[in-house]
């Protein structure tokens, strides 16, 4: 079973790689284009996939993945099941801040097929932040892209003094106090 590992490859100077996993390809592509348009001072490569595991034949040319973003569309139960199955192919070390869940589609309440408690449980179980965003709206897409870029920089180690482990502070909610 091929698993994505965070530290099995050497990092490349001044570059970072982000992996977007989700079944909604249009949304994925739009988010990727928005990320590419943002101003950044490092080389970025964006990998798009509908599910894991990633095809083994491209393993040797794939760079080290710094951040995995799972795109959950609340309107598609099929997509959610896909993501749950894909999570098994991610090495446990990734879940120390290098994974986050993007949840879209919550705005259209009538079309929601995935229970919100199931989504929150996923975030809890895998100790990763949930970011709610409506990616169809351009403004939100841009701000999400900026946020992901910042997270990517930190995960790739470009920001001195800050590591991905700090992201657990993103998950502290008012219920915990």
């Amino acid at each position, binding site marked *: 079973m091929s698993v994505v590992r965070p530290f099995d490859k050497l990092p490349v100077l001044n570059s970072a790689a982000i992996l977007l996993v989700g079944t*909604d390809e249009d949304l994925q592509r739009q988010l990727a284009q928005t990320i*590419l348009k943002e101003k950044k001072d490092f080389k*970025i*490569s*964006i*990998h*798009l996939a*509908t*599910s894991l595991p990633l*095809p083994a034949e491209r393993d040797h040319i794939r760079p080290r993945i710094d951040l995995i973003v799972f795109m959950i569309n609340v309107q598609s139960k099929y997509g959610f099941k896909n993501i749950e199955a894909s999570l098994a192919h991610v090495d446990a070390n990734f879940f120390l801040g290098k994974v986050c869940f993007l949840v879209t589609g919550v705005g259209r309440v009538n079309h929601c097929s995935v229970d919100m408690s199931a989504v929150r449980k996923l975030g809890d179980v895998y100790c990763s932040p949930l970011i709610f965003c409506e990616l169809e709206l351009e403004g939100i897409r841009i701000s999400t892209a900026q946020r992901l870029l910042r997270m990517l920089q930190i995960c790739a180690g470009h920001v001195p003094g800050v590591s991905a482990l700090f992201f657990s502070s993103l998950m502290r909610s008012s219920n915990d106090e």
Partner: protein
Amino acid sequence: MAARGRRGRGAAGGAMDVTVAEFIRRTVLKVPRSHIPALLQAWGFLPAARLQALDVRPLKEAIAEAVVQLCQENSASIKEAAVLDIVYNHTFQNKRVWTVYQMTKATGGETDIFDFTAFKRKFKRRIQSSLINVTINFKEFEDNAIWIRIAWGTSYTKPNQYKATYVVYHSQTPYAFISKSINRSNLPLLCQALIVASNYGDIREMELRSHCLDSLKDIVFKRYSQTFQTHHPKPLQERNVAPENVDPRLIQEDKSEKERIQRVNQEVFGDGPQPKLEFAQYKLETMFKSSPKMVNVSERESFRCLVKFSSPHLLEALKSLAPAGMADAPLSPLLTCIPHKARNYFKIKERKGVLAAGLVSP
């Protein structure tokens, strides 16, 4: 809008029945304004010169009145009005729901050369032997389609011209398309008349219904692009895909999976446009299989459940499910068999003796 009296003949005016005039008026009112000249021309009853002089600029009520006036001058009867109705329904055939019927030859029967006159005579005779108050009209169109219009009455009422049944029959095929009439009690008589007139032995209703008559014809006449099972796998052909100006920083990891989905889709659905159906209905007569915790649900009677898929274009929607990332490819054969089996209404029964669910029954 005050309705004209429908009883009795009009005292003044031409030799045309008031009911006929009203019927023609209402038929013209149903037609969208831009289609009126073409429709009247296809009707072929009014002289061409008068048709050209017809003004289509004013309100539709005025146009309808003008048409009725012209019909008065030419002494239109119910026959011409019925033909106008056929032409209207032929032009706007997709407004009705059509059901497909299949006829089978009696054993030992031969294929005779089709005689339209004999067909009409036999058909009329069979219906009128049971029911006097009917209006039956025929019209043949260019694609060898025979349209039959039947307006039904009872022993003491005149035929209701506004609730007619339409039958489309292609003489070289054993299929008839009947538009769903509200009154089903006349259906056996209609079916009998059809088989008598066309020299067949039996007729049965197929589980195939749709608004789009052409698509129904495509399915039963096998005119859509079908896929044929080839023994050797075809190499993936180059299609005219526009060269993608893909950013090299954007990497599609599962290109091969996408290609597989396209290939499977092509194998299942073929390349051409799919026939247009609006719904598929699955009636489940299977047992409910519950987890041991749910003891309340009776496991002895079947769990009644009806699953209905509806879409403006169902088969195209199914074809795009896997590429859009909403379903696995290949799709369930229950969905993909719709055009091959020529049905969109299914009954799924329990498969006896096997643990797996569901067998599609004929």
